[in-house]
């Protein structure tokens, strides 16, 4: 506790770094997963290769991916872009299936009604399918957010500063306090992200909070 109070500023800035490294890939990953999930849902023959293929990406060990990124991207080993890109890969891996499932959860008769009223395919996607897929997509997003917060800490092994740095630091000095603070800070961050996703999802789906007649 004493150590924590003495290093408030340091822990705070590591937490901000951590949050940015976890959230940026979440947003980018979602933007990539939506069209991929749409393709998987729209064209049946693409579904298995797309979902299995992106799912496989998640099995690549994170440390290996962080080390490989500079070779692929031509970036420096300490560049945070490596972390962002690697986590984006994981986010896409988790979200493509979720987006496809979310779009598949939209009732067929609703889609038919939309088409029958002369709503074109593009408009139908944005105004009907995506809004109705939000609850399922948000559930997947919550898993990806927590997973990202946890995986970001591995990047400390490469020397990219975030909450994981507290683990390597504490380990190197055989000093428990920063490790405990790091764990708690990770949990708090994951919780905050989770609640934020729930709040946003609820805000954009007002129809789900309505009283259903008996």
């Amino acid at each position: 506790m004493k150590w924590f109070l003495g290093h408030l500023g340091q822990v705070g800035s590591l937490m901000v770094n951590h949050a940015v490294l976890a959230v940026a890939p979440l947003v980018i990953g979602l933007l990539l997963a939506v069209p991929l999930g749409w393709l998987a849902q729209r064209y049946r023959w693409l579904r298995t290769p797309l979902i299995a293929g992106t799912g496989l990406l998640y099995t690549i060990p994170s440390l290996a991916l962080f080390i490989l990124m500079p070779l692929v991207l031509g970036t420096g080993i300490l560049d945070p872009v490596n972390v962002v890109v690697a986590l984006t890969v994981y986010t896409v891996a988790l979200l493509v299936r979720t987006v496809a499932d979310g779009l598949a959860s939209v009732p067929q008769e609703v889609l038919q009604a939309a088409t029958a009223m002369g709503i074109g395919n593009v408009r139908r996607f944005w105004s009907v399918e995506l809004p109705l897929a939000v609850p399922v997509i948000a559930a997947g997003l919550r898993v990806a957010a927590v997973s990202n917060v946890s995986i970001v800490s591995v990047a400390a092994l490469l020397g990219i500063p975030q909450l994981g740095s507290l683990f390597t630091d504490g380990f190197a000095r055989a000093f428990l306090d920063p490790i405990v603070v790091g764990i708690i800070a990770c949990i708090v961050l994951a919780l905050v992200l989770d609640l934020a996703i729930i709040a946003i999802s609820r805000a954009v789906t007002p129809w789900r909070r309505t009283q259903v007649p008996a």
Partner: protein
Amino acid sequence: MIRFTDVTKVYPGGTTAVGGLSLTAPTGQITVLVGPSGCGKTTSLRMINRMIEPTSGTIEIDGRDTGTLDPNELRRGIGYVIQSGGLFPHRTILDNIATVPLLLGWDRARARARAQDLLERVGLDPVLGKRYPNQLSGGQQQRVGVARALAADPPVMLMDEPFSAVDPVVREQLQDEFLRLQSELGKTIVFVTHDIDEAVKLGDQVAVLRVGGRLAQLASPAKLLSDPHDDFVADFLGRDRGYRGLAFAEAPELPLRDEPVVLLGSSVEQAAAIAAGDRWVLVVDEARAPLGWAEPGVLTGVIDRDHLHRGGTVARVGGSLRAALDAALSSPSRRGVLVDDADSLVGTVRAPDVLAAIERRPDGVPA
């Protein structure tokens, strides 16, 4: 007018859903497509607004080949109602109804005013407009579905089993209101159902389709019931065809008898006196609307609603022979109750008198 000319739909697997269908749905009338599962009735309906493209043949609406029109523009000019409404769960009732007007570029205020107007037109409370579909009952959702289809005032409406997901009582209400609405609006309607009773009740003309999308018979409901073209149509129509056919025969002047009545709330002694030895006496309210039959011999005290026998149906003067006959057959006193348009008692009629009227009808089948 919607005209099918030799329309065929063959699916990639080689199944023929619709085979060489030619028929005309006249302007301002309800044409019902009815048949067993797999008869291609829904496929036929969806080819009209090109949700399904025909393999061959043409479909024209008022002389224009739909195949040459932009599908989305075509669809915005055709109202479409499906089972359980197909409402957008994430939009309020008003926004659901305003969908097509907004697509057509109406400004928001006008679209909403129109939606509000339609909500009342289909018999819903205006406060429901701000709710979401899951807050409405199945019957209410179905009404919203109809309102949404009517929103841009399209001349043509397609209805795909719109009333089959609700319970029988609500279904009958919806059917009656649909007929009332249609009598005001005069749309050109193609209506799909698997329920022959619904087809016969709603259709100005009924097209019976057999499996493989072939037209078995196209006729008015009365003609269909009295003169089925073949065994398939006869079997599909089912039993009691003679009786059901009477629904389309307007009752001629029937020999009505004056019926002694007692007011609800009268004493049983008064009722017995009025019955004058008859076992049953008809109970009415202040406006002479019949409420039910009472049996003074087994009652004591004052006649209240719980005492009434309610088995008897009530027919309207100038209504169908079927309604008049049923009123007589269902009445415990065997006297069928007839009322005027204000639901006020006119008199009673006995089954032999109705049968005599049926006997007096000319032989042969209606056109």
